[in-house]
């Protein structure tokens, strides 16, 4: 069963994935503008985050998670790989393990644009480096900044 030759399935996937990418872009923009009102920091532990900010973080997580799952299931592995590391960041953000900063949003936006290119089956120069930068962010940078 070659899924990429199933035209109807591919059309459904591309339409859904494009919608999810648009949702993530929109919510990242909202989050970014709210950061300006919080001295460019948003922490979900003890918490400067409002309910509406937490709701946005949850929606970002859900959109990225769905993008990851669908992409991997239909054989868009590179897109799924980038969506997976973005999903991990949003999960930690909504769970209060991550202090959102403007540079994190900027890096995640780069990831989202890479997803968009992979969806159009374009090459993305340096995508392995981008993956590493997002993964390193997950492993090292922000965890040091969050007090117990």
């Amino acid at each position: 069963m070659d899924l990429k030759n199933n035209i109807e399935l591919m059309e459904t996937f591309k339409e859904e994935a494009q919608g999810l990418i648009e949702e993530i872009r929109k919510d990242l923009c909202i989050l970014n503008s709210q950061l300006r009102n919080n001295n460019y920091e948003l922490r979900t532990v003890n918490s400067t985050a409002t309910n509406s900010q937490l709701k946005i973080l949850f929606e970002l997580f859900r959109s990225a998670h769905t993008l990851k799952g669908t992409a991997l299931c239909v054989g868009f592995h590179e897109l799924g790989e980038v969506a997976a590391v973005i999903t991990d960041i949003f999960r930690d953000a909504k769970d209060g393990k991550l202090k959102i900063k403007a540079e994190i949003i900027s890096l995640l936006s780069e990831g989202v644009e890479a997803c968009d290119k992979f969806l159009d089956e374009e090459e993305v120069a340096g995508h392995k480096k981008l993956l590493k930068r997002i993964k390193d962010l997950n492993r090292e940078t922000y965890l040091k900044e969050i007090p117990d």
Partner: protein
Amino acid sequence: MAKNILIADDSATIRKLVSYTLKFGGYNVVTANDGKQAWEILRKGKFDMTIIDILMPVMDGFQLLSKIKNDEKLKNTPCVILTTEGDEASEQKGMELGADSFMAKPFQPQQLIAKVEEFIK
């Protein structure tokens, strides 16, 4: 007679992929976009199995699973939960709520058929 399977997932792609695969395997498939819609369909129809995604709007997969396993009429319907590879916390919670099995995304079509055949011959 072909067996009836309900799939609850908010992703149109996954609904189509699962439907396509299971219809190819000779099953009747009904789809729901979220847990609430799935619950309404389950109460009205007769299903031999349900396949449930966790992260859905309105009513998530855990809530749906809990309702099914606490319902006298529906509690024996096999429920397979779609999880993400390595998500042990979700599997643990699913087991506690009475899930019959798990299927990690991404999956191959033949893996899905094999999983269904564990419960429906």
